[in-house]
């Protein structure tokens, strides 16, 4: 796992499949750079905590006491599915936060939008009346 935990986890949550690009083909690092600069601290901490919880929780979902990066691709994907539906509420909420932020990154990617025949977004300038 040479990536930052959040990049790593987001790529697993929204991976590429036939006919649809996932976050492994999107500039997640660039997105997270902006996110970490712009989002409020509690939100950033929630996403970071959620990412680590994801990495360390195969024991909860698969009963395997290993971090997710030591699992096979197939088991990683199974963990990814099950963790989003875990009965442990706080863990599920943490995953929801990570998934929601991953969704912000993925859904605005022009290539992804093109694959779903959606118009690209104009840039978010962040401008305001001075």
């Amino acid at each position: 796992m040479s990536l930052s935990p959040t990049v790593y986890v987001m790529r697993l949550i929204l991976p590429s499949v036939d006919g649809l690009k996932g976050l492994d083909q999107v500039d997640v690092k660039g997105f997270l750079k902006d996110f970490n600069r712009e989002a409020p601290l509690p939100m950033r901490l929630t996403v970071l905590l959620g990412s680590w919880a994801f990495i360390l929780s195969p024991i909860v979902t698969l009963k395997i006491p290993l971090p997710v990066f030591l699992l096979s691709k197939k088991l990683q994907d199974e963990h990814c599915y099950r963790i989003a539906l875990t009965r442990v509420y706080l863990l599920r909420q943490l995953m929801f936060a990570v998934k929601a932020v991953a969704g912000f990154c993925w859904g605005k990617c022009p290539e992804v939008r093109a694959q779903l025949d959606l118009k690209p977004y104009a840039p978010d300038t962040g401008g305001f009346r001075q």
Partner: protein
Amino acid sequence: MTHIAFQKKGAPVEVEADFIVVGSGAGGGAVASGLARGGAKVAVVEAGPWRDPEHYPSSMYGTMRDMFDDWTSLMTFGRALWPVLQGRVVGGTTTINSAIVVRTPADIFQSWEKNYGFGGEALAEKVWAHQDQLEKELYVQETAPDKMGRSNELALITSQKRGVEGHVIRRNVKDCEGSGQCLQGCKKERKQSTNLKMIPEVMERGGMVLSCAPVHKIMLKGNRAVGVTGRFVHPQTKEKGAKFVVRAKHGVVVAASCTHSPALLQRSGIKGRMLGQLFRAHPGSAILGLYDDDINMPFGATQGWSSLEYRNTPGFKLETLNMPLELIAGRISGGGMRLMDRLKNYRRLALWVVACRADSIGTVSNGPFGKPIVKYTMNQTDMAKLRDGAVEVAKHHFAAGAKAVMPGVLGVPYELHEKDLHHLENASLDPRAWTSILTHLFGGCPMGANPDVGLCDERGRVFGYEGLVVADASVMPTNLGVNPQHTIMGLARQRAAELLEDIS
């Protein structure tokens, strides 16, 4: 015309007006423009920046960052953590809502009179008269059929087919182009949000606007409100700027939302046993329907159809809601390859929602760093309503031709076919099993006949204080069962009329 945006640290910015209005959304915009029309000099003080349509974001990331209050990170504390959605920008939530206009139902004024000792027919007549005027000012109309979009069309046709009340929503959107961007702010300038209609009018009539200016405290002289203070905050860097002091000759009107108004009053040392009480909402959940043909949610009115068939019994309303791809990615169950396979169907999904007319009551208090704390848990009766509403949405989807529905409730299979509906009918009533949000907030500074039942009197004046009036949804002691924007504006205009009467 004066607009003071973020000011760097230095000498305090000091201004004076006849009235200060804290907040610029439905309540703040309507009361400020009403006062300005009566000749008063008004200073509107808004925590968020002033973004014009050319500044509006396109993506939901930009929307969270630029338009929503604190990135929607405000959650309810209770059995479940549900997000509380509000705008934080000049125009408040009117910039990011679906602009739905529903006249205040008569039964609301009756229930206020019966249970809280104010309201009744006299108030109803006044509010309705303001609503008549507001509907003209804001070009309230139905969306044209060719701009409705497929999801709204389907829901409408199906309600006719099923014999269920259902209608095209009337909205303060002039000639909607169906760009499906109500949530991000309407770049086409069709939505008549208060930053486009009312706040500019305040300035044209000699008023002023302070933006990027979160109010920290209301200044009191004895028991009289004489002004507000705070410190500018840069909307991008969050850098703290200069202090501001705004003094009011006649009064301070608080319209900062159901969460921020009670928190501000508490921070300012205002006393009242009902302060922060009677917080209510219309919690909502969405049910996705999967269709054979192209739905294309990004085209059409963001919300174009509604049903009030069940408003009174059992107590919920149904609506369409066209949701952007980014939010659907977070909303659909699961993760990994299976989630991605599900997202491939985005164009064939229609999202319809149930908003529960919940009787559950919460509280709002001022938390650390000036953030409100909302304590709220849906009781079992309300959860049953929410579940009944979800079942009704699912039935509507099936009647519309959906091949499956996706309720997103823990313990219920991801995809339900018509024969499997019993799974949803028997779904858990634990709020933690549901993915819900809190919109349409009410209470926190409720009106009532006396300080035992309300923080404010029937004119929104805080008991025990002079020159301090509340004019947003926080004054409503009950929920409405319909979208609140029109009621907030109608009441706020009535507040303006009363304040002008007082000073004349």
